[in-house]
């Protein structure tokens, strides 16, 4: 009898350990999956290096909005229950009844690529791709203050190196304003507006104001960082 009880206890203990492992692995896995998905977003900067040729320009015009529209349609089907949410790996629980953050991420990248000059778009996209996951990681491991400080420095680096050919005053101004906007965009949480959208759009809008003011304050626009490549054939 005692042996049976011991075996049952052992079995239950093993089940608890297995379940805990499963839960931990799901959380841990989804967590790193989301981080890699963020970093992957930097690949979209390839848009700027594509050759300036008619048929490629047509692709550049149509493909990015098409990707966003497809993502939006899939999300609508998921929210309406036609597609099971469990197919969407890495989705947070609160995202099950609203549009997933990856759509906000994609919409913000599309808006930046289409409507903003690359001097603004590139650092804003880099902030969402690298500063956001780094801040999240530091927040998880240390504290919020450290996350904000590291995020600010990292974002400032992205803005400064994108504007390194500009006047030093303008470069520092853009670095501080852009980093401040990105950190505010990441820290401020709304239910219907994801931080992946805000971290890109808040600094972009702030920098757009500076961009329009540049000729009036006596500076010249910095040159592009990425120039379209030549056709290899």
């Amino acid at each position, binding site marked *: 009898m005692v042996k049976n009880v011991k075996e049952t206890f052992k079995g239950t203990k093993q089940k608890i350990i297995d379940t805990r*492992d499963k839960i931990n*692995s799901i959380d841990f896995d989804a967590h*790193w999956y989301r981080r890699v998905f963020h*970093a992957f977003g930097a690949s979209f*900067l390839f848009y700027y290096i594509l050759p300036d040729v008619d048929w490629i320009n047509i692709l550049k015009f149509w493909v990015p909005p098409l990707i966003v529209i497809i993502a939006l349609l899939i999300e609508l089907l998921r929210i309406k229950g036609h597609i099971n949410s*469990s197919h969407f790996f890495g989705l947070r629980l609160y995202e099950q009844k609203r549009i997933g953050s990856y759509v906000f991420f994609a919409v913000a990248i599309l808006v930046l690529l289409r409507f903003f000059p690359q001097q603004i778009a590139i650092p804003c996209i*880099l902030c969402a791709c690298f500063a956001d996951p780094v801040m999240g990681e530091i927040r998880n491991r240390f504290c919020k203050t450290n996350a904000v400080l590291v995020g600010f420095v990292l974002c400032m680096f992205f803005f400064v190196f994108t504007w*390194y050919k500009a006047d030093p005053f303008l470069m520092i101004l853009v670095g501080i304003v852009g980093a401040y906007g990105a950190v505010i965009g990441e820290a401020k949480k709304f239910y219907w507006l994801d931080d992946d959208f805000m971290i890109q759009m808040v600094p972009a809008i702030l920098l757009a104001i500076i961009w329009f003011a540049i000729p009036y304050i006596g500076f010249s626009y910095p040159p592009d960082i990425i120039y379209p490549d030549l056709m290899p054939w």
Partner: protein
Amino acid sequence: MNEEKMNYVKDPNSNERIFRTELLLAPLLILLPLVVGIIFINDWYTRDFIEGTYDLNGQLILGIVIIVGNILFDIPFIRSLRNFKALFKKSKK
């Protein structure tokens, strides 16, 4: 533990779906940014460094940022993927 999370863990198909989605997307998520970073650096080398113009230094930094940033997140991701693979095999047995 959250009830929704509990139900998710109880669902025997969940692990399989997760594993399939991850395996399907992992090569794209890992390789594409590295390729883009290499293209940026290669473009800087052929159009800028060899010509000696040094106009595309920003592109070089961008390429390095993309590669280093992605590798930093890829390593723990691959490690977690391997852990999950082992766990998945164990749970299938």
